[in-house]
Protein backbone atom coordinates (compact mmCIF):
# COMPACT_ATOMS: atom_id res chain seq x y z
CA UNK A 1 0.00 0.00 0.00
CA UNK A 2 1.53 3.29 -1.14
CA UNK A 3 0.35 6.43 0.55
CA UNK A 4 1.82 9.82 -0.17
CA UNK A 5 2.21 12.55 2.37
CA UNK A 6 -0.63 14.41 0.69
CA UNK A 7 -2.91 11.38 1.04
CA UNK A 8 -1.90 11.01 4.68
CA UNK A 9 -3.09 14.52 5.30
CA UNK A 10 -6.35 13.76 3.55
CA UNK A 11 -6.75 10.75 5.81
CA UNK A 12 -6.33 12.96 8.85
CA UNK A 13 -8.20 16.12 7.96
CA UNK A 14 -8.26 17.60 11.44
CA UNK A 15 -4.58 17.08 12.04
CA UNK A 16 -3.83 18.29 8.54
CA UNK A 17 -5.55 21.62 8.99
CA UNK A 18 -3.86 22.18 12.33
CA UNK A 19 -0.51 21.15 10.92
CA UNK A 20 -0.66 23.55 7.99
CA UNK A 21 -1.83 26.42 10.19
CA UNK A 22 0.76 25.82 12.83
CA UNK A 23 3.46 25.76 10.20
CA UNK A 24 2.13 29.07 8.91
CA UNK A 25 2.06 31.07 12.13
CA UNK A 26 1.11 31.06 15.76
CA UNK A 27 -1.06 28.26 17.15
CA UNK A 28 -3.63 30.90 17.93
CA UNK A 29 -4.21 31.23 14.18
CA UNK A 30 -4.88 27.50 13.83
CA UNK A 31 -8.61 26.95 13.35
CA UNK A 32 -8.79 23.97 15.70
CA UNK A 33 -6.30 25.07 18.30
CA UNK A 34 -7.10 27.95 20.62
CA UNK A 35 -4.42 28.74 23.18
CA UNK A 36 -6.97 30.15 25.58
CA UNK A 37 -8.96 26.92 25.44
CA UNK A 38 -6.34 24.78 27.18
CA UNK A 39 -4.42 24.58 30.44
CA UNK A 40 -1.94 21.77 30.16
CA UNK A 41 -0.47 19.53 32.81
CA UNK A 42 0.45 15.91 33.32
CA UNK A 43 -0.56 13.05 35.56
CA UNK A 44 2.04 10.53 36.68
CA UNK A 45 0.67 7.31 38.09
CA UNK A 46 3.53 5.99 40.20
CA UNK A 47 2.16 2.45 40.83
CA UNK A 48 2.04 1.94 37.06
CA UNK A 49 5.66 2.89 36.31
CA UNK A 50 7.94 -0.08 35.62
CA UNK A 51 11.12 1.94 35.03
CA UNK A 52 11.60 0.79 31.41
CA UNK A 53 13.01 4.16 30.32
CA UNK A 54 10.83 4.32 27.20
CA UNK A 55 9.78 7.89 28.02
CA UNK A 56 13.39 9.07 28.40
CA UNK A 57 14.41 7.57 25.06
CA UNK A 58 11.29 8.84 23.32
CA UNK A 59 11.88 12.35 24.65
CA UNK A 60 15.48 12.29 23.48
CA UNK A 61 14.41 11.15 20.01
CA UNK A 62 11.53 13.58 19.67
CA UNK A 63 13.37 16.63 20.98
CA UNK A 64 17.03 15.98 20.14
CA UNK A 65 18.01 16.13 23.80
CA UNK A 66 21.83 16.11 24.10
CA UNK A 67 23.48 13.13 25.79
CA UNK A 68 23.92 13.57 29.53
CA UNK A 69 21.08 16.10 29.82
CA UNK A 70 17.44 15.31 30.39
CA UNK A 71 14.08 16.89 29.72
CA UNK A 72 12.60 13.90 31.48
CA UNK A 73 14.27 11.22 33.55
CA UNK A 74 13.24 8.36 35.83
CA UNK A 75 14.45 7.86 39.39
CA UNK A 76 14.27 4.61 41.30
CA UNK A 77 13.66 5.00 45.00
CA UNK A 78 14.44 2.35 47.57
CA UNK A 79 13.21 3.09 51.03
CA UNK A 80 14.78 0.51 53.30
CA UNK A 81 12.92 -1.17 56.16
CA UNK A 82 13.16 0.48 59.55
CA UNK A 83 16.14 -1.29 61.16
CA UNK A 84 15.44 -3.17 64.40
CA UNK A 85 17.88 -1.37 66.66
CA UNK A 86 18.03 -1.45 70.46
CA UNK A 87 16.50 1.98 70.95
CA UNK A 88 14.28 2.00 67.88
CA UNK A 89 15.92 5.25 66.85
CA UNK A 90 17.92 5.07 63.64
CA UNK A 91 20.06 7.40 61.62
CA UNK A 92 19.57 7.95 58.81
CA UNK A 93 15.84 7.68 58.96
CA UNK A 94 14.86 5.71 55.82
CA UNK A 95 11.96 8.07 55.20
CA UNK A 96 14.37 11.01 55.03
CA UNK A 97 17.32 9.26 53.42
CA UNK A 98 16.00 6.96 50.70
CA UNK A 99 18.44 5.36 48.29
CA UNK A 100 17.90 6.93 44.85
CA UNK A 101 19.45 5.95 41.52
CA UNK A 102 18.93 7.14 37.99
CA UNK A 103 21.66 5.62 35.78
CA UNK A 104 21.89 7.82 32.67
CA UNK A 105 18.50 9.22 33.62
CA UNK A 106 17.02 5.72 33.47
CA UNK A 107 17.32 5.86 29.69
CA UNK A 108 18.26 2.19 29.40
CA UNK A 109 16.15 1.05 32.33
CA UNK A 110 17.49 -0.03 35.71
CA UNK A 111 19.60 -2.92 36.96
CA UNK A 112 17.41 -5.72 38.31
CA UNK A 113 16.92 -5.38 42.06
CA UNK A 114 17.26 -8.54 44.08
CA UNK A 115 16.94 -7.15 47.60
CA UNK A 116 13.30 -7.82 48.49
CA UNK A 117 13.34 -5.72 51.67
CA UNK A 118 11.97 -2.21 51.92
CA UNK A 119 9.84 -0.45 49.36
CA UNK A 120 10.76 0.25 45.73
CA UNK A 121 9.11 2.59 43.28
CA UNK A 122 9.95 4.57 40.17
CA UNK A 123 9.44 8.32 39.89
CA UNK A 124 9.44 9.85 36.41
CA UNK A 125 10.49 13.49 36.57
CA UNK A 126 10.17 16.37 34.15
CA UNK A 127 9.27 20.05 34.06
CA UNK A 128 6.31 20.70 36.35
CA UNK A 129 4.99 23.46 34.08
CA UNK A 130 4.40 25.53 37.17
CA UNK A 131 1.72 28.19 37.08
CA UNK A 132 3.82 30.32 39.46
CA UNK A 133 7.10 29.24 37.98
CA UNK A 134 10.26 30.51 39.67
CA UNK A 135 12.27 29.99 36.47
CA UNK A 136 10.26 32.37 34.29
CA UNK A 137 10.21 34.87 37.16
CA UNK A 138 13.98 35.30 37.15
CA UNK A 139 14.62 35.46 33.38
CA UNK A 140 16.17 38.90 32.86
CA UNK A 141 15.00 39.39 29.27
CA UNK A 142 11.72 37.52 28.84
CA UNK A 143 13.24 34.60 26.96
CA UNK A 144 11.29 32.06 28.99
CA UNK A 145 7.64 32.37 29.76
CA UNK A 146 4.38 30.61 30.53
CA UNK A 147 2.35 30.35 27.33
CA UNK A 148 -1.34 31.29 27.45
CA UNK A 149 -2.13 27.55 27.56
CA UNK A 150 0.05 26.94 30.62
CA UNK A 151 3.26 25.55 29.15
CA UNK A 152 6.65 26.86 30.28
CA UNK A 153 8.64 27.50 27.11
CA UNK A 154 12.04 28.93 26.14
CA UNK A 155 12.54 31.31 23.22
CA UNK A 156 15.93 30.00 22.20
CA UNK A 157 16.54 32.80 19.72
CA UNK A 158 16.26 35.31 22.55
CA UNK A 159 17.87 33.48 25.50
CA UNK A 160 21.16 34.93 26.76
CA UNK A 161 22.28 31.67 28.32
CA UNK A 162 22.80 33.24 31.76
CA UNK A 163 21.51 30.08 33.50
CA UNK A 164 19.67 32.03 36.20
CA UNK A 165 16.55 29.99 35.38
CA UNK A 166 18.53 26.77 35.83
CA UNK A 167 19.42 27.92 39.35
CA UNK A 168 15.85 28.95 40.10
CA UNK A 169 14.18 25.65 39.21
CA UNK A 170 13.65 23.66 42.42
CA UNK A 171 13.27 20.41 40.47
CA UNK A 172 16.47 20.40 38.38
CA UNK A 173 14.47 20.33 35.15
CA UNK A 174 16.50 22.87 33.20
CA UNK A 175 19.95 22.79 31.71
CA UNK A 176 22.04 24.89 29.36
CA UNK A 177 22.24 23.14 26.00
CA UNK A 178 25.92 22.30 25.48
CA UNK A 179 25.92 23.29 21.80
CA UNK A 180 23.18 25.89 21.53
CA UNK A 181 24.37 27.61 24.77
CA UNK A 182 20.81 28.50 25.70
CA UNK A 183 18.44 27.24 28.37
CA UNK A 184 16.70 24.04 27.32
CA UNK A 185 13.86 22.15 28.94
CA UNK A 186 10.70 20.11 28.47
CA UNK A 187 8.23 21.90 26.16
CA UNK A 188 5.48 19.41 27.03
CA UNK A 189 5.94 18.53 23.35
CA UNK A 190 4.27 21.81 22.48
CA UNK A 191 4.72 21.04 18.78
CA UNK A 192 2.65 17.88 19.32
CA UNK A 193 -0.07 18.92 21.73
CA UNK A 194 -0.97 21.90 19.53
CA UNK A 195 -1.58 19.42 16.70
CA UNK A 196 -3.87 17.16 18.69
CA UNK A 197 -1.18 14.60 19.53
CA UNK A 198 -0.04 13.59 22.98
CA UNK A 199 3.55 14.09 24.19
CA UNK A 200 6.30 11.73 23.04
CA UNK A 201 6.77 10.38 26.59
CA UNK A 202 3.06 9.63 26.99
CA UNK A 203 2.92 8.09 23.50
CA UNK A 204 5.83 5.79 24.33
CA UNK A 205 4.82 4.84 27.88
CA UNK A 206 3.72 1.18 27.71
CA UNK A 207 1.77 1.16 30.98
CA UNK A 208 -0.11 4.45 30.88
CA UNK A 209 1.88 5.76 33.83
CA UNK A 210 1.98 9.16 32.12
CA UNK A 211 -1.13 11.01 30.98
CA UNK A 212 -1.20 14.41 29.34
CA UNK A 213 -4.01 16.37 30.95
CA UNK A 214 -5.92 19.44 29.85
CA UNK A 215 -7.36 21.04 32.96
CA UNK A 216 -9.59 23.35 30.93
CA UNK A 217 -11.27 20.43 29.21
CA UNK A 218 -14.30 19.42 31.33
CA UNK A 219 -14.28 15.94 29.78
CA UNK A 220 -10.65 15.22 30.63
CA UNK A 221 -10.45 12.06 32.81
CA UNK A 222 -8.15 13.98 35.18
CA UNK A 223 -11.15 15.58 36.87
CA UNK A 224 -12.63 12.21 37.85
CA UNK A 225 -9.18 10.93 38.80
CA UNK A 226 -8.53 13.84 41.15
CA UNK A 227 -11.79 13.11 42.97
CA UNK A 228 -10.89 9.54 43.83
CA UNK A 229 -7.12 9.45 44.24
CA UNK A 230 -4.49 10.75 46.59
CA UNK A 231 -2.65 13.12 44.27
CA UNK A 232 0.32 15.33 45.13
CA UNK A 233 2.82 17.63 43.52
CA UNK A 234 6.58 17.68 44.14
CA UNK A 235 7.93 20.08 46.79
CA UNK A 236 4.58 21.73 47.58
CA UNK A 237 6.42 23.98 50.07
CA UNK A 238 8.00 25.75 47.08
CA UNK A 239 4.53 27.05 46.12
CA UNK A 240 5.28 26.87 42.41
CA UNK A 241 1.76 25.94 41.29
CA UNK A 242 3.16 22.74 39.76
CA UNK A 243 0.90 21.00 37.24
CA UNK A 244 2.73 17.68 37.28
CA UNK A 245 0.38 15.56 39.41
CA UNK A 246 1.65 12.42 41.06
CA UNK A 247 -0.69 9.64 42.09
CA UNK A 248 0.39 7.74 45.21
CA UNK A 249 3.57 9.75 45.75
CA UNK A 250 5.73 8.53 48.64
CA UNK A 251 6.68 11.10 51.26
CA UNK A 252 10.38 10.41 50.79
CA UNK A 253 10.38 11.74 47.20
CA UNK A 254 12.08 15.07 46.61
Amino acid sequence: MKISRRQMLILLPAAAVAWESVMAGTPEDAPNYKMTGHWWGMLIDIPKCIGCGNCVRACQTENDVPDGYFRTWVERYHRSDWPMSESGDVTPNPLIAPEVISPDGGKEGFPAATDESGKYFFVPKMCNHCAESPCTQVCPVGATFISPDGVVLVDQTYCLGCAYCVQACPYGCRYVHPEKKVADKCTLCYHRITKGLTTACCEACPTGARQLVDLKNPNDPIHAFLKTHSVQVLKPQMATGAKLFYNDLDGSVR
Partner: protein
Amino acid sequence: MNGVEGYMYPNEITLYWSVLIVLYPYITGLVAGAFILASLERVFRVEAVKPTYRLALLTALAFLLVAPLPLVLHLGHPFRSPEMYFTPHSTSAMAMFGYVYLWYLMAVLVLEIWLDYRRDIVLLSQSSKGLLRFVYKVMTLGSSNISPRSLAIDDRVGWIVTLIGIPSAFLLHGYVGFIFGSVKANPWWSSPLMPVVFIFSAMVSGIAGVMLLYMAISKLRKQVIDMRCVDSIAMYLFYIFIIDFSLEMLDLVHRIYEANESFNSLNFMVHTQLYFSQIVLQIGLGTITPLALLFLTQVVKLPEIARKYMYVLSGSLALIGVLAMRWNVVIGGQLFSKSFLGYTTYKMSLVTREGLLVAIFLTLLPLVFLWVLIKLLPPWPEKSAHAAAD
Protein backbone atom coordinates in the same frame (compact mmCIF):
# COMPACT_ATOMS: atom_id res chain seq x y z
CA MET B 1 31.08 9.16 37.77
CA ASN B 2 31.92 12.85 37.28
CA GLY B 3 32.80 13.31 40.93
CA VAL B 4 29.22 12.72 42.05
CA GLU B 5 28.56 11.39 45.53
CA GLY B 6 25.07 10.18 46.44
CA TYR B 7 22.25 11.23 44.14
CA MET B 8 22.11 14.39 42.02
CA TYR B 9 19.30 15.23 39.62
CA PRO B 10 20.99 14.42 36.30
CA ASN B 11 20.95 18.04 35.07
CA GLU B 12 22.65 19.21 38.27
CA ILE B 13 25.91 17.34 37.69
CA THR B 14 27.41 20.20 35.66
CA LEU B 15 27.83 23.55 37.39
CA TYR B 16 26.32 26.37 35.37
CA TRP B 17 27.85 29.28 37.28
CA SER B 18 31.61 29.18 37.17
CA VAL B 19 34.50 31.06 38.75
CA LEU B 20 33.56 34.14 36.70
CA ILE B 21 30.33 34.43 38.67
CA VAL B 22 32.50 34.32 41.80
CA LEU B 23 34.42 37.33 40.52
CA TYR B 24 31.34 39.31 39.63
CA PRO B 25 30.09 39.95 43.19
CA TYR B 26 33.69 40.29 44.33
CA ILE B 27 34.48 43.09 41.89
CA THR B 28 31.13 44.82 42.41
CA GLY B 29 31.76 44.60 46.14
CA LEU B 30 35.11 46.33 45.79
CA VAL B 31 33.36 49.14 43.91
CA ALA B 32 30.71 49.62 46.57
CA GLY B 33 33.25 49.43 49.39
CA ALA B 34 35.65 51.90 47.79
CA PHE B 35 32.83 54.34 47.19
CA ILE B 36 31.64 54.13 50.79
CA LEU B 37 35.18 54.97 51.90
CA ALA B 38 35.22 57.99 49.60
CA SER B 39 31.88 59.14 50.96
CA LEU B 40 33.30 59.05 54.51
CA GLU B 41 35.33 62.10 53.69
CA ARG B 42 32.76 63.82 51.54
CA VAL B 43 29.54 63.34 53.45
CA PHE B 44 30.63 62.45 56.95
CA ARG B 45 33.53 64.94 56.94
CA VAL B 46 36.13 62.47 58.17
CA GLU B 47 39.10 64.71 57.35
CA ALA B 48 41.70 62.05 58.19
CA VAL B 49 40.86 59.88 55.18
CA LYS B 50 41.09 62.79 52.71
CA PRO B 51 44.34 61.53 51.08
CA THR B 52 42.44 58.50 49.81
CA TYR B 53 39.32 60.31 48.60
CA ARG B 54 40.20 60.63 44.94
CA LEU B 55 42.07 57.33 44.86
CA ALA B 56 38.97 55.59 46.25
CA LEU B 57 36.78 57.16 43.57
CA LEU B 58 39.15 56.15 40.77
CA THR B 59 39.45 52.64 42.23
CA ALA B 60 35.67 52.36 42.31
CA LEU B 61 35.47 53.47 38.67
CA ALA B 62 38.25 51.13 37.53
CA PHE B 63 36.56 48.14 39.13
CA LEU B 64 33.10 49.19 38.03
CA LEU B 65 34.24 49.26 34.39
CA VAL B 66 35.35 45.64 34.73
CA ALA B 67 32.38 44.46 36.84
CA PRO B 68 30.07 43.45 33.99
CA LEU B 69 32.81 41.65 32.01
CA PRO B 70 32.70 38.36 33.95
CA LEU B 71 28.92 38.36 33.66
CA VAL B 72 28.95 38.97 29.93
CA LEU B 73 31.75 36.48 29.32
CA HIS B 74 29.90 33.71 31.10
CA LEU B 75 26.77 34.20 28.97
CA GLY B 76 26.07 31.59 26.32
CA HIS B 77 25.34 34.45 23.90
CA PRO B 78 27.27 37.53 25.04
CA PHE B 79 26.09 39.60 22.08
CA ARG B 80 22.49 39.25 23.19
CA SER B 81 23.24 41.04 26.47
CA PRO B 82 21.78 44.41 25.30
CA GLU B 83 18.39 42.67 25.56
CA MET B 84 18.78 43.30 29.31
CA TYR B 85 18.37 47.00 28.52
CA PHE B 86 15.87 46.72 25.71
CA THR B 87 13.42 44.29 27.29
CA PRO B 88 14.21 44.09 31.01
CA HIS B 89 11.92 41.68 32.80
CA SER B 90 10.44 43.51 35.77
CA THR B 91 10.28 40.41 37.99
CA SER B 92 13.94 39.50 37.47
CA ALA B 93 16.55 40.67 39.94
CA MET B 94 19.20 40.23 37.29
CA ALA B 95 17.43 42.46 34.75
CA MET B 96 17.31 45.35 37.18
CA PHE B 97 21.05 45.01 37.73
CA GLY B 98 21.69 46.39 34.25
CA TYR B 99 19.90 49.61 35.11
CA VAL B 100 21.29 49.88 38.61
CA TYR B 101 24.76 49.42 37.14
CA LEU B 102 24.27 52.13 34.53
CA TRP B 103 22.78 54.50 37.07
CA TYR B 104 25.66 53.95 39.42
CA LEU B 105 28.28 54.28 36.70
CA MET B 106 26.94 57.38 34.97
CA ALA B 107 24.78 59.24 37.46
CA VAL B 108 27.00 58.65 40.46
CA LEU B 109 30.62 57.73 39.84
CA VAL B 110 31.41 59.44 36.54
CA LEU B 111 29.47 62.54 37.52
CA GLU B 112 31.11 62.79 40.92
CA ILE B 113 34.60 62.26 39.51
CA TRP B 114 33.96 64.77 36.76
CA LEU B 115 32.72 67.39 39.18
CA ASP B 116 35.62 66.83 41.53
CA TYR B 117 38.23 66.89 38.76
CA ARG B 118 36.70 69.57 36.56
CA ARG B 119 39.13 72.28 37.64
CA ASP B 120 42.08 69.94 36.98
CA ILE B 121 40.66 68.84 33.65
CA VAL B 122 40.26 72.41 32.46
CA LEU B 123 43.80 73.31 33.59
CA LEU B 124 45.22 70.15 32.02
CA SER B 125 43.39 70.84 28.75
CA GLN B 126 45.29 74.12 28.61
CA SER B 127 48.70 72.86 29.69
CA SER B 128 48.98 69.49 27.92
CA LYS B 129 49.74 68.87 24.27
CA GLY B 130 48.76 66.67 21.37
CA LEU B 131 46.28 63.85 21.71
CA LEU B 132 46.13 64.24 25.49
CA ARG B 133 45.06 67.85 25.07
CA PHE B 134 42.22 66.67 22.84
CA VAL B 135 41.16 64.03 25.39
CA TYR B 136 41.03 66.62 28.15
CA LYS B 137 39.18 69.04 25.85
CA VAL B 138 36.50 66.41 25.27
CA MET B 139 36.31 65.80 29.00
CA THR B 140 35.63 69.48 29.67
CA LEU B 141 32.53 69.12 27.47
CA GLY B 142 33.56 72.42 25.92
CA SER B 143 33.16 74.45 29.09
CA SER B 144 36.27 75.99 30.62
CA ASN B 145 34.40 77.93 33.27
CA ILE B 146 36.31 77.45 36.52
CA SER B 147 35.21 80.61 38.22
CA PRO B 148 35.05 80.31 42.02
CA ARG B 149 31.28 80.45 41.76
CA SER B 150 31.08 77.57 39.30
CA LEU B 151 33.46 75.50 41.43
CA ALA B 152 31.29 76.22 44.46
CA ILE B 153 28.29 74.93 42.53
CA ASP B 154 30.28 71.82 41.56
CA ASP B 155 31.16 71.23 45.18
CA ARG B 156 27.55 71.53 46.28
CA VAL B 157 26.27 69.27 43.47
CA GLY B 158 29.09 66.80 44.15
CA TRP B 159 28.03 66.60 47.76
CA ILE B 160 24.44 65.81 46.72
CA VAL B 161 25.68 63.21 44.25
CA THR B 162 27.69 61.52 46.99
CA LEU B 163 24.66 61.61 49.22
CA ILE B 164 22.66 59.84 46.51
CA GLY B 165 25.67 57.65 45.87
CA ILE B 166 25.65 56.00 49.29
CA PRO B 167 22.23 54.38 48.91
CA SER B 168 23.14 53.69 45.28
CA ALA B 169 26.25 51.80 46.35
CA PHE B 170 24.14 49.85 48.83
CA LEU B 171 21.61 49.22 46.07
CA LEU B 172 24.26 48.11 43.59
CA HIS B 173 25.71 45.55 45.89
CA GLY B 174 22.57 44.71 47.81
CA TYR B 175 21.17 43.78 44.43
CA VAL B 176 23.95 41.32 43.83
CA GLY B 177 23.13 39.74 47.18
CA PHE B 178 19.46 39.72 46.28
CA ILE B 179 20.17 37.84 43.03
CA PHE B 180 21.32 34.96 45.23
CA GLY B 181 19.20 35.56 48.32
CA SER B 182 15.93 35.46 46.38
CA VAL B 183 16.40 32.00 44.84
CA LYS B 184 13.93 30.03 46.93
CA ALA B 185 14.92 26.77 45.27
CA ASN B 186 18.39 26.98 46.78
CA PRO B 187 18.51 26.83 50.60
CA TRP B 188 22.22 27.76 50.64
CA TRP B 189 21.35 31.09 49.01
CA SER B 190 17.79 31.79 50.00
CA SER B 191 18.08 34.17 52.94
CA PRO B 192 16.97 37.75 53.55
CA LEU B 193 20.35 38.29 55.24
CA MET B 194 22.16 37.65 51.98
CA PRO B 195 22.01 41.23 50.60
CA VAL B 196 23.03 42.69 53.97
CA VAL B 197 25.93 40.27 54.35
CA PHE B 198 26.97 41.10 50.80
CA ILE B 199 26.94 44.84 51.48
CA PHE B 200 29.01 44.62 54.63
CA SER B 201 31.52 42.18 53.19
CA ALA B 202 31.71 44.49 50.18
CA MET B 203 32.59 47.40 52.44
CA VAL B 204 35.24 45.27 54.13
CA SER B 205 36.83 44.32 50.81
CA GLY B 206 36.56 47.82 49.33
CA ILE B 207 38.02 49.59 52.33
CA ALA B 208 40.79 47.02 52.71
CA GLY B 209 41.48 47.27 48.97
CA VAL B 210 41.81 51.06 48.93
CA MET B 211 43.93 50.98 52.09
CA LEU B 212 46.35 48.53 50.49
CA LEU B 213 46.37 50.46 47.21
CA TYR B 214 47.07 53.71 49.01
CA MET B 215 49.99 52.16 50.91
CA ALA B 216 51.36 50.46 47.80
CA ILE B 217 51.06 53.55 45.61
CA SER B 218 52.65 55.76 48.28
CA LYS B 219 55.52 53.29 48.41
CA LEU B 220 55.84 53.35 44.61
CA ARG B 221 55.75 57.14 44.51
CA LYS B 222 58.29 57.19 47.36
CA GLN B 223 55.92 59.30 49.42
CA VAL B 224 55.45 59.12 53.14
CA ILE B 225 52.37 57.15 54.12
CA ASP B 226 49.99 59.38 56.04
CA MET B 227 49.63 57.24 59.17
CA ARG B 228 46.75 59.30 60.55
CA CYS B 229 44.84 58.44 57.39
CA VAL B 230 45.72 54.74 57.41
CA ASP B 231 44.96 54.49 61.13
CA SER B 232 41.46 55.84 60.67
CA ILE B 233 40.82 53.63 57.62
CA ALA B 234 41.92 50.64 59.69
CA MET B 235 39.60 51.71 62.47
CA TYR B 236 36.61 51.87 60.09
CA LEU B 237 37.69 48.57 58.58
CA PHE B 238 37.69 47.04 62.06
CA TYR B 239 34.20 48.31 62.94
CA ILE B 240 32.64 47.25 59.66
CA PHE B 241 34.42 43.92 59.87
CA ILE B 242 32.78 43.31 63.26
CA ILE B 243 29.32 43.99 61.80
CA ASP B 244 30.11 41.77 58.81
CA PHE B 245 31.37 38.95 61.01
CA SER B 246 28.36 39.20 63.34
CA LEU B 247 25.95 39.00 60.41
CA GLU B 248 27.73 36.00 58.92
CA MET B 249 27.75 34.26 62.28
CA LEU B 250 24.09 35.10 62.80
CA ASP B 251 23.32 33.44 59.49
CA LEU B 252 25.39 30.40 60.47
CA VAL B 253 23.94 30.06 63.96
CA HIS B 254 20.44 30.51 62.60
CA ARG B 255 20.97 27.69 60.10
CA ILE B 256 22.45 25.37 62.70
CA TYR B 257 19.72 26.09 65.24
CA GLU B 258 16.82 25.86 62.78
CA ALA B 259 18.32 22.71 61.23
CA ASN B 260 15.62 22.49 58.57
CA GLU B 261 15.35 19.87 55.83
CA SER B 262 18.44 21.09 54.00
CA PHE B 263 20.64 21.26 57.07
CA ASN B 264 22.17 17.77 56.99
CA SER B 265 23.07 18.19 53.36
CA LEU B 266 24.63 21.64 53.79
CA ASN B 267 26.33 20.71 57.05
CA PHE B 268 27.98 17.74 55.36
CA MET B 269 29.11 19.95 52.48
CA VAL B 270 30.67 22.53 54.80
CA HIS B 271 32.61 19.78 56.56
CA THR B 272 33.87 18.15 53.36
CA GLN B 273 33.94 19.92 50.01
CA LEU B 274 33.81 23.44 51.42
CA TYR B 275 35.91 22.79 54.52
CA PHE B 276 39.02 24.51 53.20
CA SER B 277 37.36 27.47 51.50
CA GLN B 278 34.70 28.05 54.15
CA ILE B 279 36.13 27.11 57.54
CA VAL B 280 39.84 27.62 56.89
CA LEU B 281 39.94 30.45 54.34
CA GLN B 282 36.76 32.42 54.87
CA ILE B 283 36.21 32.16 58.61
CA GLY B 284 39.66 31.30 60.01
CA LEU B 285 42.22 33.10 57.87
CA GLY B 286 39.96 35.62 56.16
CA THR B 287 37.88 36.86 59.07
CA ILE B 288 39.01 35.87 62.57
CA THR B 289 42.74 36.43 61.94
CA PRO B 290 42.46 39.93 60.44
CA LEU B 291 39.86 40.84 63.06
CA ALA B 292 42.27 39.78 65.81
CA LEU B 293 45.11 41.74 64.21
CA LEU B 294 42.98 44.85 63.81
CA PHE B 295 41.76 44.46 67.37
CA LEU B 296 45.37 44.47 68.54
CA THR B 297 46.13 47.66 66.64
CA GLN B 298 43.11 49.28 68.27
CA VAL B 299 43.85 48.37 71.87
CA VAL B 300 47.65 48.22 72.03
CA LYS B 301 49.93 51.17 71.30
CA LEU B 302 52.14 49.72 68.60
CA PRO B 303 55.05 51.37 66.79
CA GLU B 304 54.30 52.70 63.31
CA ILE B 305 56.18 50.01 61.44
CA ALA B 306 54.35 47.21 63.29
CA ARG B 307 50.99 48.83 62.55
CA LYS B 308 51.90 49.10 58.86
CA TYR B 309 52.72 45.42 58.63
CA MET B 310 49.61 44.46 60.53
CA TYR B 311 47.43 46.63 58.30
CA VAL B 312 48.94 45.13 55.16
CA LEU B 313 48.55 41.61 56.52
CA SER B 314 44.99 42.05 57.78
CA GLY B 315 43.95 43.94 54.64
CA SER B 316 45.28 41.18 52.39
CA LEU B 317 43.67 38.47 54.50
CA ALA B 318 40.37 40.34 54.45
CA LEU B 319 40.51 40.48 50.64
CA ILE B 320 41.18 36.74 50.49
CA GLY B 321 38.43 36.07 53.02
CA VAL B 322 35.84 38.01 51.06
CA LEU B 323 36.86 36.29 47.83
CA ALA B 324 36.50 32.95 49.63
CA MET B 325 33.06 34.04 50.85
CA ARG B 326 31.97 34.77 47.25
CA TRP B 327 33.36 31.42 46.18
CA ASN B 328 31.51 29.57 48.93
CA VAL B 329 28.24 31.27 48.07
CA VAL B 330 28.41 30.86 44.29
CA ILE B 331 30.17 27.52 43.92
CA GLY B 332 28.96 26.06 47.23
CA GLY B 333 25.39 26.76 46.23
CA GLN B 334 25.74 24.45 43.27
CA LEU B 335 27.66 21.58 44.83
CA PHE B 336 24.73 19.93 46.57
CA SER B 337 21.65 18.43 44.97
CA LYS B 338 18.31 20.16 45.43
CA SER B 339 17.13 16.67 46.34
CA PHE B 340 19.48 16.93 49.39
CA LEU B 341 20.70 13.44 48.55
CA GLY B 342 24.09 14.06 46.98
CA TYR B 343 26.98 16.27 45.95
CA THR B 344 28.89 17.07 42.81
CA THR B 345 32.32 18.66 42.32
CA TYR B 346 33.45 21.77 40.50
CA LYS B 347 36.32 21.28 38.11
CA MET B 348 37.68 24.66 37.16
CA SER B 349 39.01 24.74 33.62
CA LEU B 350 42.20 26.62 32.82
CA VAL B 351 42.07 28.17 29.38
CA THR B 352 38.39 28.17 28.37
CA ARG B 353 36.26 31.29 28.22
CA GLU B 354 35.19 30.66 31.81
CA GLY B 355 38.52 29.31 32.98
CA LEU B 356 41.08 30.29 35.59
CA LEU B 357 43.27 32.32 33.23
CA VAL B 358 40.38 34.55 32.23
CA ALA B 359 39.49 34.93 35.90
CA ILE B 360 43.03 36.02 36.77
CA PHE B 361 43.07 38.39 33.81
CA LEU B 362 39.78 39.94 34.90
CA THR B 363 41.08 40.36 38.46
CA LEU B 364 44.15 42.22 37.23
CA LEU B 365 42.39 44.25 34.55
CA PRO B 366 40.93 46.81 37.01
CA LEU B 367 44.48 47.57 38.20
CA VAL B 368 45.45 48.39 34.61
CA PHE B 369 42.39 50.61 34.30
CA LEU B 370 43.29 52.25 37.60
CA TRP B 371 46.83 52.92 36.37
CA VAL B 372 45.46 54.63 33.24
CA LEU B 373 42.96 56.63 35.29
CA ILE B 374 45.69 57.75 37.70
CA LYS B 375 47.86 58.84 34.79
CA LEU B 376 44.97 60.70 33.22
CA LEU B 377 43.53 62.17 36.40
CA PRO B 378 46.27 62.34 39.04
CA PRO B 379 44.63 62.06 42.47
CA TRP B 380 47.36 64.23 44.03
CA PRO B 381 46.70 67.77 42.87
CA GLU B 382 48.46 69.46 45.80
CA LYS B 383 51.68 67.63 45.08
CA SER B 384 51.71 68.51 41.40
CA ALA B 385 50.85 72.09 42.28
CA HIS B 386 53.81 72.11 44.66
CA ALA B 387 56.01 70.59 41.99
CA ALA B 388 54.92 73.28 39.58
CA ALA B 389 55.64 75.99 42.14
CA ASP B 390 59.13 74.67 42.90
